[in-house]
């Protein structure tokens, strides 16, 4: 299953995905989990700043912004 996954940061505007795993530990991992991003969660890319950073995602009914650096640690499968 890992071979089918890609970093969240490469999701294009409007695309939907399912979280496969979080390649991150410590405080940042806890933050991401607390935002409701756990394996199986649906994430949709709803906005990208002109510089590509940060990126807005729709998760569980709210829009959040992630640094592209942090989004690259979240592995998803496109849906």
């Amino acid at each position, binding site marked *: 299953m890992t071979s089918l996954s890609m970093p969240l940061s490469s999701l294009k505007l409007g695309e939907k995905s399912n979280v496969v795993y979080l390649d991150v530990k410590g*405080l940042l991992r*806890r*933050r991401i989990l*607390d*935002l*409701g991003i756990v394996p199986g969660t649906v994430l949709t890319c709803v906005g990208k700043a002109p510089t590509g950073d940060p990126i807005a995602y729709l998760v*569980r*009914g709210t829009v959040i912004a992630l640094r592209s650096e942090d989004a690259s640690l979240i592995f998803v499968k496109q849906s």
Partner: protein
Amino acid sequence: MNLTIGDRSKYRGRVMREHFGISTTGEQYIIALAGNPNVGKSTVFNALTGLRQHTGNWPGKTVDNAQGIYSYRKKSFLLVDLPGTYSLLANSVEEEIARDFICFGKPNATIVVVDATSLERNLNLAFQIMEITDKVVICVNLIDEARKKKIKIQFDELEKKLGVPVIPTAARNGEGLEELQKAVYEIVLEKRLTQPKQIAYSQEVEEAISVLMPQIKPLNIAAEVINPKWLALRLLDSDSSFIESINRFVNMYKNIK
């Protein structure tokens, strides 16, 4: 070591004063105000306490602390504004403060302010708090925003499912505040009992908890001060920050006699 009611209130008074910098006068009920950042917690706090508040820092920390007083039905309530947090589990100073206050300060009740337009994410913190204490009131704030966004919430259903009072409010225009005070009053004076919905973990975790619990309960200090299931879960997590806090508070507790 068995605790008398006198011990318990001596403990709480002392912990409150020394560790949290909170002093109460006479018969005052201490109410913790918790919630995610940006849910209007400060609006709720200001609406309830008006000018009867003072701000400072948590002792020894560079995090803001606000305390204020309000009266309801001739009783006095000291409202303590906890730092906004997404959970009680991370190791940031804010989360430590919120967690320690709820776990060891043992307020008479905790109001969890949640954002009506972002309920799912906000309930994460609520469930954690409901694992620690059953004296919880959920304040669903920003219902005016929810109305604008055409979000409809079935408050009765939510209350049934969560097992604790759920009060809709729009603190910035005063809506729901009287009901909130009433719910807090009823919880604190035990005129209303709650049964907070507990999260069921995976079978593995539940089994591990059932192995740990019988070993934790006989440690009287721990059982009296900290919810044993919460303690078991934090031990399974190897939550070192929490274990440090336990040592600190249990020592304070031991030294009371």
